[in-house]
């Protein structure tokens, strides 16, 4: 199960890629395997303010629905509109075409202590069984 080394992770099984002051966010391979086929994702609107640790959307799969959280404070600058027509991209390429939304991070960078390293995330998924 993939846990790319260049990303950071959250307890909610999301990944975050930080490039300058912008964070790109999606859900992990582990999350997609636990959810099964994603059939619909409700994303925040561009321009919306998001708060770290608070729900900003929903991920619907065949068997369940999960909240989507923002891992950082900031303003949504872009959402992946392809997912509206093809939510299967999330299962097929969770770290690539299945990305979900981008946030301009308040203060330019997230507090690094709030995010998990790849090794820490891998340990989390192993302990979850």
């Amino acid at each position, binding site marked *: 199960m993939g846990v790319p080394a260049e990303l950071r992770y959250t307890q909610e099984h999301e990944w975050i890629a930080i490039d300058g002051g912008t964070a790109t966010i999606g859900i992990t391979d582990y999350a997609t395997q636990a959810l099964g086929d994603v059939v619909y994702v409700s994303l925040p609107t561009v321009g919306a303010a998001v708060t770290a640790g608070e729900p900003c959307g929903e991920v619907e799969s065949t068997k369940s*629905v999960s909240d989507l959280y923002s891992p950082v404070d900031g303003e949504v600058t872009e959402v992946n509109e392809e997912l509206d027509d093809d939510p299967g991209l999330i299962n097929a390429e969770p770290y690539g075409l299945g990305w979900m939304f981008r946030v301009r991070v308040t203060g330019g960078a997230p507090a690094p202590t709030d995010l998990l390293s790849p090794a820490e995330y891998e340990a989390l998924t192993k302990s979850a069984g």
Partner: protein
Amino acid sequence: MIPTVRDTPLRAVHERLGATMTEFAGWLMPLRYGSETSEHNAVRTAAALFDLSHMGEIAVTGPDAGAALDYAVCGWPSALAVGRARYTMLCAPDGGILDDLIIYRQAAERFLVVANAANADVVLGELTARCAAAVVTDESAGTGLISIQGPDASGLLAPLTDLPLAGLRYYAGGYGTVAGRPAWIARTGYTGEDGFEIFCAPADCEPVWDALTATVPGGLPAAGLAARDTLRLEAGMPLYGNELGPDVTPYEAGLGRVVRFDKPGDFVGREALAARAAEGPRATLIGLRAGSRRVPRHGYPVLSGTERAGVVTSGAPSPTLGVPIAMAYLEPGTTGPFGIDIRGRAEPAEQTELPFYDRRK
């Protein structure tokens, strides 16, 4: 007592296929092998294999087996011809549903009762108590169950069995062999498609599964419980614990036809069921088609206007229809337009006839 999770005879096969396993009714079962949507679509368009070895199998035998079952369940098993099957229910004295069953008449003096895994012990206990004039035997541990479902099922199974499938009607079965292994082969299922259920010895499950898998180049796909649930929901088939339970009678579920007052003799629940038939059901099971892409789930409130009017019993994104669908119990006399309270936000939903999907249309 330490609860143990049981393995089906096909555990190793599921592991080899990389299945995501889940605990279901005390059994470790395949939830999905890959994409549950692909598994669902395979059943609708071609065929797929299911391991249903968790189901309970109980034999009721002896010269008085038919009459004993007539008393025990609300259907009329003694009227079945040998080789035919019927969907029926086991009810409590108050008319509440203890389980829904398929009963096969395998011989003049032998009936096979197939119960839901979660209710197998209850059914065994009730049949043992109610069928004193017959021999009731728990055959679950000695029986594996493999199902092949889909429009191609007949064509794929036929070369592997000595039972002539062309003459086998829906809800009929016969003894034969599959891949040389003895089996009871029945044209039944829980998907809304043509298909067969193959009851065989646990030790024969793997060779039968492998032979069926090898019927198509690249392997006949396997389907897990996730696909089984969306398939039965599209077909409008109730699931015990969702649409059926001890707090409803067959009338609420729209299945009053399973109650056979025309059979001779008394049966458990007769008085209560007759009263409910006369007074009318206390709730109505309906189909709903969601007007948004948010998915109604078990337990979500159904709204009539802004008032709560019922509850969703099962809901899922329908792969065949491309929209979320649900079954729900409505209070009698409720009228639309309907909505569903999906996590605090009302979403529109349209009442639709059941089933959502009918292969003959």
